[in-house]
């Protein structure tokens, strides 16, 4: 990282989410699933938000999904926006629906922003964001 460069904001590694980030560092996508009602639980939390059950298990995901919707970020704007993303412009922020059901906010990378379409099949890929932190992103599926 060049001197004076603004660092991108990173997630806080909460106790509930630590298994997610540990798996991501091994290039694996995992999510919580309730053993009582079978619901997917996402984002990470201490109990099932469908039935209240506490028997929730980290479960490997296929890493496959499709683009539910997306936008192309062409400018840094808004109170919550970090200028650290300036060099990435234009880039795609997308809602990706995993084939198991949960929806993630993520980036679609590995293709031109103009080639991204709703319904496009995508697969997870991990991008290093800090020493031990890997962010799951998605690229067009082969």
């Amino acid at each position, binding site marked *: 990282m060049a001197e004076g460069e603004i660092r991108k904001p990173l997630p806080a590694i909460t106790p509930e989410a630590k298994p997610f980030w540990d798996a991501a560092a091994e290039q694996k996508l995992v999510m919580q699933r309730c053993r009582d009602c079978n619901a*997917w639980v996402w984002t990470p939390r201490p109990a099932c938000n469908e039935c209240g059950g506490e028997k929730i298990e980290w479960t490997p995901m296929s890493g496959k999904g499709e683009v539910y919707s997306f936008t192309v970020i*062409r400018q*840094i704007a808004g109170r919550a*926006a970090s200028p650290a993303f300036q060099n990435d412009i234009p880039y795609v922020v997308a809602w990706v629906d995993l084939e198991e059901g949960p*929806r*993630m906010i993520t980036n679609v990378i590995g293709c031109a922003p103009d080639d991204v379409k709703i319904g496009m099949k995508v697969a997870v890929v991990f991008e290093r964001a800090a020493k031990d932190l890997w962010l799951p992103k998605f690229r067009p599926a082969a």
Partner: protein
Amino acid sequence: MSLRNKAAIVGIGETPTDRLGSKPGEPRKSTAAYLAWAMRLAFEDAGLSLKDFQGQGLGVTIPTAYPQPFWPEEVAEILGITPGFLLGGATGGAGAVSLLGGMAAAIGSGVIDLALVIGAAAPFSEHWGGGLQPADMRDWEIPYGTMGPNSKIAMVMRRYMHEYGATLDHFGKIAVTGRYHASLNPLAYLRKPITMEDYKGSRLVADPVRLLDCVIPANGGRAYILASPERAKTLRHKPVYLKGFGERSNPSYGPRAGSDALVIGVKDAGRVAMEMAGVEHREIDFLQLYDDYIVVVYLQIEDLGFCAKGDVRYFERTDFTFKGQLPIQTSGGMINCGQPSTAGGMLHVIEAVRQLRGEGGGRQVPGAKNGLVTGLGVLPYGKNLGCCSAAILGGEA
């Protein structure tokens, strides 16, 4: 318990909005100044004064950029009120409508018989910092370079267009109608009429969201006064009654981990409010819909049941002006009158009162008897809006 006819609005106060402080060297006004101004206007309208509110209700919207947890008490101190019942708006932009329900409940159960509900913000004049973010936004959105609500609404709008075949012409009609109404409202901030071409040609903010899809932030203050029906009858204006109220926070349509992002929780909040009021769709004479974005107005018309989901033909054939079949946004909405943070939504309650009193001037809905008002707040992770409130207001008990 029903809140039907348990309380009535007896006073309204709306300051002009401005963007003072957006340019260097401009004179600035504090949030406190807009609060005091809005309160004075509401007192003048109702014929009440500060002494009437001691020991009574005070409801305060909480601006998003100001995490001071005792803000409602700070407002009481600024204004010189010692409330007997103090509520903060817990639902962001929906606060104006949520507080209507909360204060009516307090009045209806006899805790108080009068309440001032007030909100103000001066985002251009005062710099409060960024405020705090929900943990989901901090951990699962911002690291991907999302640009606040614009990014999320862009995804809602794109998916909606994909799924139902709506085009810019459908959304543009809402934008043009709103500005037309604003041109008839002396208190609107943006008053120059626009055309469909202006809408379609406006700058892309977050594709497909354009500048003329977005609400305009502003400095300003807004207030209304609620009273018991007995108290209301002693005051100078014809009371405007709360007929029905409904609220849904954290709604989810489908599994919580991946819900239908094209449905807004006014679907249920509105249904509950209409049932409480005992009114049918045909008895509602106008809608004042929370409008952070044009697509949000559009979706609410569907989700409130005025047409089927995805019925684009309904939007083509319906006249939404004050003279039309379904008047909406008769003030011009926040998109044209300005959004002083979470106080923005107060506009819709105030405009509904004007219409029901017959004070709509050049934009008066002929013979308006009942109106529906909504409030919305926050865009949670992966979903549509997270706080949804609806109220039916009526000119007759």
